[in-house]
């Protein structure tokens, strides 16, 4: 058995669909998903806050489910559909979650907002509700905001849920 025969490579080809656009490129295996998005694709809405899987600023959707892109290898996203905050609005029309955040003033500095919005998109997709305030706070435990005190964020989510319950 020669060393060279062992499996694996230091460069990997990562093929993804990011915000509806197909992409394929070779990156070092150690590349994190957030670095593929920010540095390779120039999609800088996704921010790196704590870089330790705590703050949720780097949250993106992987096949529709929220994940922390600082704690996934780009290689793990190979073949997946990735959505970032850049991919939410339809032209000039904000995504309903973005619109609710604007309406309820659910952001101040905006650093956590892309991750927060995507965590909410995932929550509303997974949980048909109706949601209680406790449900919303529990679901956003992995997204830290140092400006708003969370109250307006929770209000925005509850308003979205109430609207869809009303049909």
């Amino acid at each position, binding site marked *: 058995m020669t060393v060279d025969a062992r499996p694996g490579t230091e460069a990997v080809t990562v093929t993804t669909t990011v915000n509806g656009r197909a992409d394929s490129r070779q990156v070092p*295996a150690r590349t994190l998903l957030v670095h593929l998005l920010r540095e390779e694709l120039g999609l800088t809405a996704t921010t790196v806050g704590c870089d330790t899987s705590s703050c949720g600023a780097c949250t993106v959707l992987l096949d529709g489910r929220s994940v922390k892109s600082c704690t996934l290898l780009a290689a793990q996203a190979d073949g997946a559909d990735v959505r970032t905050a850049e991919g939410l609005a339809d032209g000039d029309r904000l995504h309903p979650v973005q619109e609710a955040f604007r309406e309820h003033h659910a952001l101040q500095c905006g650093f956590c907002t892309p991750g927060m919005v995507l965590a909410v998109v995932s929550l509303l997709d997974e949980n048909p509700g109706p949601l209680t305030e406790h449900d919303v706070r529990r679901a956003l435990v*992995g997204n830290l905001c140092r400006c708003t005190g969370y109250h307006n964020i929770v209000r925005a989510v509850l308003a979205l849920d109430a609207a869809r319950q009303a049909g």
Partner: protein
Amino acid sequence: MIPASVRYHRAADLAEALELRRAYGDLLRPLAGGQSLLPALKLRRDRVDTLLDLGRIGELSYVAHRGDHLAVGALTRYQRLLTDPLVDRYAPMLATAAAAVGDPQVRHAGTVGGALAQADPAADLPLALVALDAAVVLASTAGTREVPAAELAVGPGATLCRPDELVTEVRVPLPGPARWSYRTFARPALEWSLVAVAVADGRVALAGMGPTIRRARGVEAALADGAGAAAAAARADEDCDPVDDVRASAAYRRHLSRVLVARALADCSPEVRP
């Protein structure tokens, strides 16, 4: 922070993964959801030659009812345990334990098998599996073997899993406990449990009270002898060896274990009996 240079190979299926484990053993580090391994690699607390990514082995992501046990595939994500109707019906403690793990983002990526292989002494799901007397299936190219969940971990981060094996499934015996409780105490919200307790009829298991998750034999013996919940809970930290660290003193962890066991037994009142 990024991990040190590393090689990467994604296994196409279980057969390929087991063949590579047989041929290369510990040169390959299995990567499931990566929610524990990647932080360790980023902080350079762990070094890996080659990652063997198991994340796309779809055949290991399932929950199945098989008469005398509920089977959960090793690559089943935590989040599925929160919503799976079979888990809800046959082993609801697994959903409660999974809900205590991290946050939705972590639960969308982290896996049952990964949690077991990490052998963290404060891990939630392995604690529930010990209390439920579950078995862990280890597979190699030579076949499979079952190990009791309580015996899988031999120390922090160390298990009985051989370099040629992979965790492929857990089996929760049925019927499940008539009474059960799961109690955890953590601070701050996202931190690992300081101490957690799971009670399933007469079995009482503790996390965070030593190098591995363990049964609280003193409590179980007291219950078997007819002791009340308070008297039994007073024996919670017998034969335990909790760490004394920046998050909590050993004495505080001992205190927590007695309080949590008392509350968990109260949840199960009238007093659980083996």
